[in-house]
């Protein structure tokens, strides 16, 4: 019995050791992945890839015959190049509307506005591309289009090449808005739907944004204090209180919603806030050090490494959150 227990214990410890070893091996790969995926998420809106699925859903449902597809009779006629600007103007309305709605959602789902336009444009284009692809696939299935080899397609006249692409694009535009209540629900307001950020996360991000706004608006960051005293202490206390609240939210977000390199992002933000708090405490102790952290005309070479690092992080935080106080 005892031997069995000992064997079990040694087995456990073997597995634990193996797991630890595996974690140690995986950690650098995970760190590298986080390092790579975080900017991709910020540039291309990877967090919102679910929107592409929901956005392409109307085209897919249309292809399956769930509802009547847009009328294609006029698309079949030969439309001259002169009509192209009018077609573009009309077709762009749903695209612009989708872009604006996607942008609004993404503004809520990401803490900062860096690369927001790029993200929204990427997601909108991805929705159009996938919808067009679904329309093209449907066209192939029902015989509207015919699959040919690349060399044949290349050799065919311009009209024959452009026509299917144009048709698919126009159909995808038509499917974009209004044809799916689900997609409209997704892009109009935050909801706990699968593949999309949850309400809890969005609520925490909103609260954190509020804290960052309070931090960005702190007078300590803009006005040089005359000397130490109750006024300065009060400003520092206000700022540190906002920082503490932000840190609590960051810890929660970093622990619960940490995919796509977000943990790393929150860690960096946390480091910036820690340095801001240290600078505020330093200034509370010696008000003349304010210029070392916030004055624009300070000689950076005269600062020690800690002050330089704090100043750089404070500047980075200010740059990121500047839009909150506009």
């Amino acid at each position, binding site marked *: 019995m005892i031997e069995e227990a000992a064997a079990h214990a040694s087995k456990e410890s073997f597995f634990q050791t193996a797991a630890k070893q595996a974690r140690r091996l995986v950690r650098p790969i995970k760190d590298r992945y986080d390092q790579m995926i975080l900017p991709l998420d910020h540039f291309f809106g990877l967090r919102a890839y679910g929107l592409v699925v929901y956005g392409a859903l109307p085209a897919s449902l249309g292809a399956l015959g769930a509802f009547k597809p847009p009328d294609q009779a006029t698309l079949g006629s030969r439309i001259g190049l002169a009509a192209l600007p009018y077609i573009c103007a009309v077709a762009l309305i749903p695209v612009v509307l989708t872009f604006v709605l996607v942008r609004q959602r993404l503004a809520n789902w990401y803490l900062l506005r860096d690369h927001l336009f790029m993200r929204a444009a990427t997601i909108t284009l991805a929705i159009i591309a996938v919808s067009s692809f679904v329309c093209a696939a449907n066209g192939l299935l029902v015989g509207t289009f015919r699959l040919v080899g690349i060399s044949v397609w290349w050799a065919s006249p311009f009209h024959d090449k452009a026509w299917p692409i144009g048709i698919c694009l126009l159909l995808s535009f038509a499917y974009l808005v209004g044809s799916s209540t689900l997609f409209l629900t997704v892009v109009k307001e935050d909801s706990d739907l699968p593949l999309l950020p949850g309400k809890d996360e969005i609520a925490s991000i909103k609260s954190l944004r509020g804290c960052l706004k309070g931090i960005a608006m702190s007078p300590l960051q803009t006005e040089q204090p005359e000397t130490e005293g109750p006024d300065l202490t009060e400003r520092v206390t206000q700022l540190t209180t906002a920082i503490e609240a932000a840190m609590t939210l960051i810890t929660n977000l970093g622990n619960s919603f940490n995919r796509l390199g977000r943990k790393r992002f929150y860690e960096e933000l946390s480091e910036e806030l820690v340095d801001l708090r240290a600078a505020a405490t330093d200034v509370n*102790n010696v008000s003349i*050090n304010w210029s070392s952290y916030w004055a624009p005309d300070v000689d950076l*070479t*005269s*600062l*020690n490494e*800690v002050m330089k690092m704090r100043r750089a992080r404070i500047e980075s935080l200010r740059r990121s959150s500047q839009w909150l106080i506009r």
Partner: protein
Amino acid sequence: MAHKIVVTVCVVALTKQDYGELDEAIKEKLDALGDVYDFQTVGKPYANSPDEWQPFEEGTPIRAYLDKANLKASLVSAQLYDPQRGAEVLKKTALYIIDPLVLTHTTKRERLAREIQTTIYNTEKAFCIVLPAELPAALRGELADVCINQLQSLHAIRDENDSYEWQVETAERLQSYLKRVARRLGPKADDFMLSLAQAVFAARGVARPDLSDNPQLVT
């Protein structure tokens, strides 16, 4: 973790840029030391900021020693020569860490030998002069003489207070000095609480509480 002692520190040391303004005689002596004093290289022993001065061979900047000694230092060295804030620096600083080579600098020596010395003397601020044992004996002797000549007031009071240290030769000594300063600047015993505790012990028949015996649990 122990609560850190907040203190305002000014490191009065040379920087990388100061080589051109040193006395010619000292320049020659420092040049002869080769790599030990290379003003072109950061950390040999100077950097762009006085706080990054690495006086000892182990290559630790002064601010790191402060951290190790449980001091949460607000460093004001960057403002020392600022015409608008210089006076405030002298007023606020509680501890000066001095590099004697500053006394061989054509312009900075005045600030140290006059204002800083007077402030320390009059307001009993803590100070230490760091003169590494790694320097050649002749140069150390020469620098010690410069200190005695130009910092006469500090030399006169050097033994009056344990927050004064005339010559710190090693990293260990600097560390123990800073710990001493931390203890000195740290929280003091609350007289009221002390008398209250003494009264409680006295009521239990303990006239002079001490830890000479093993502590025991009593009912």
